[in-house]
């Protein structure tokens, strides 16, 4: 029972890391970035290449799996995304889905379409026994700790720093923020890069738990969108709560009622959205 709960929380934490960037771009920049999963996937493949081909230790792979997608995010944002900020959502969707297909084809061309297998270091292997019926997987504990730290850090950045307040100001009213001398373009590029980097980190951490293959961006897009829809956009706590709920119900559903386990999350989403259409912590539209 407790093991199931713990596994649920851990998978929720991973989902949070993966989906947070989407929530940020959608909520803060009002951009429908369906290619978000492509950045997550690229982080995963960066880790696979470093680990399996070049023998870099797992823990050193993680920062690189953050940095590479983050840089890719900034470059794409500056060159391509920026042209579509004022486009209508349909154009944004078509554009980002195009990126998804391109990324999937690229991944299967260079890496093959099989699942990637990695070996995490021995100290992250195994479980330790806490109580009768409660075993904690070390890797999942590590995941949970890391995601917790990141969530806390982001929350503080957003709420307590100058960067955070500039960002919130730019979102609330971009024109006035520009008028006050805030470099909104730079802010958005950095935010986009951060979101992509976090997804990449999530992709790398998720190889052990989710299956990494070239259809990753499409396979998990539904999960990301559910997190954003349920959690509401523009905050850190909303997606966090949504991802945890989703993770717990998903794992528990598969454990207790495996026949319909895969559908539970959709039921949860429907119930939450009927109860709170704007998402758990979402702000009502103020435009």
């Amino acid at each position, binding site marked *: 029972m407790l093991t199931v709960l713990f596994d649920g929380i851990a998978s929720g934490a991973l989902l949070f890391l993966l989906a947070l960037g989407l929530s940020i771009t959608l909520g803060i920049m009002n951009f429908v970035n369906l290619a978000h999963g492509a950045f997550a996937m690229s982080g995963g493949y960066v880790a696979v290449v470093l680990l399996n081909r070049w023998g870099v230790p797992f823990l050193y792979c993680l920062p690189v799996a953050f940095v590479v997608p983050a840089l890719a995010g900034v470059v794409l944002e500056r060159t391509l995304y920026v042209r579509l900020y004022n486009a209508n959502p349909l154009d944004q969707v078509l554009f980002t889905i195009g990126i998804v*297909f391109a990324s999937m084809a690229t991944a299967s061309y260079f890496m093959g379409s099989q699942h990637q297998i990695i070996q995490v270091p021995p100290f992250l292997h195994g*479980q330790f026994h806490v109580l009768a019926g409660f075993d904690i997987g070390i890797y999942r504990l590590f995941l949970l700790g890391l995601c917790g730290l990141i969530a806390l850090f982001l929350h503080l950045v957003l709420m307590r720093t100058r960067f955070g307040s500039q960002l919130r100001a730019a979102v609330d009213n971009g024109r006035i923020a520009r008028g006050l001398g805030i470099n909104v373009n730079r802010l958005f590029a950095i935010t986009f890069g951060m979101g992509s980097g976090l997804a990449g980190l999530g992709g790398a951490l998720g190889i052990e738990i989710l299956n990494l*293959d070239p259809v990753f961006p499409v396979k998990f897009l539904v999960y990301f969108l559910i997190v954003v829809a349920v959690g509401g956009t523009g905050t850190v706590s909303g997606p966090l709560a949504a991802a945890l709920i989703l993770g717990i119900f998903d794992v528990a559903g598969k454990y207790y009622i495996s026949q319909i386990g895969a559908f539970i999350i959709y039921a949860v989403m429907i119930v939450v959205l009927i109860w709170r259409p704007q998402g758990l912590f979402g702000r009502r539209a103020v435009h």
Partner: protein
Amino acid sequence: MMDRLSFRLVVAALALGVLMSTGAYAQQPLKIGLILPMTGPFASTGRQVTAAVKLYIAEHGDVVAGRKIEVLLRDDTNAPETTKRFAQELVTNDHAEILTGFGLTPLAFAAAPIATAAKVPMIVMSAGTLVIPEKSPYILRTSFTLPQQSAPIAAWATKHGINKVFTLVTDYAPGIDAETTFNNVFKANGGQIVGEARVPAQNPDYAPFIQRAKDAKPDALFVFVPSGEGAAVMKQFAERGLAKAGIKLIGPGDVTDDDILDSMGDAAIGTITSHFYSAAHPSAENKAYVAAIEKANPGMRPNFMSVGGWDGMELIYEVLKKTNGSTDGDKFIAAAKGLSWVSPRGKVTIDPRTRDIIQDVYMREVKRVSGHLYNVEFDQVASVAPDGK
């Protein structure tokens, strides 16, 4: 948004199909339509089978009974409707005289009506559900069936102190086949099933199911997952400490697929499976086979899908020799019935009654042999019928 996504996927797939189906006009050679998942999660099956087919043609020449063999490869991306469309196009537009490949059961099911309608021999090289040959009188199979592979491990288990088993299978036809056969044989021998789980075929996450298996405290966990999925199961099996809790991992050999076995790590050691092919099978034919595949495809170790492709070609060549190059559906099938030959896996026979394959099934244990993980055979059950009896 999802509607639009799936719409665009369909458009992309169509465009790809149109692109791939153009070309090829001359009618002279004997065209064999080879339909396999070359991309997507089951691409390893496509890679393995095509490597075997190429090797077979390289070793035996591309002319048989006076006819030049030409293989037309199509990638169905593991989508049954695509398999069906390619089968149709190959027969009607490209005038393919034989259809073969078929990586997974749903893909074989999808193509069967085409074989029946066109009276074209359809040789299943990979898919493993028992009922496949019943779907068309023109189907022959050179792979295996899951009842055939699952019955021996059930009989072995009860003789080796395994009395309580939790079964975990992928929720589609072969998984149900494996589960049913294992349960029947295991219970008939006095075993007890303490729990069953069927994992969805899409997006599988094995963690909750393996945790449930652990909590049920069985003597062994019986697993069937399609070729290529074994590593994910093995990971959770290791992480959740089932081996330490005294739970053995058993099953048909799909879970310890030679294609990925070596990358599973030490967690796989000790897994007991019953299966028809191991790259470590100690015969002269197999040693030559493994070496030739490795030579032509550096780094590749042939798995059971590979040998299914190899024997599919062997069957086609041998039948064509008997029919003097005719591919007339009824003649071809009649000539194939009862055909027998020695394959890298051992002796195989096409069952005249079911058009399915009769073969030896081996008991194997995963061991480290000169630094690499292999399924090492330690016992065998001779000439197992397709239904496992």
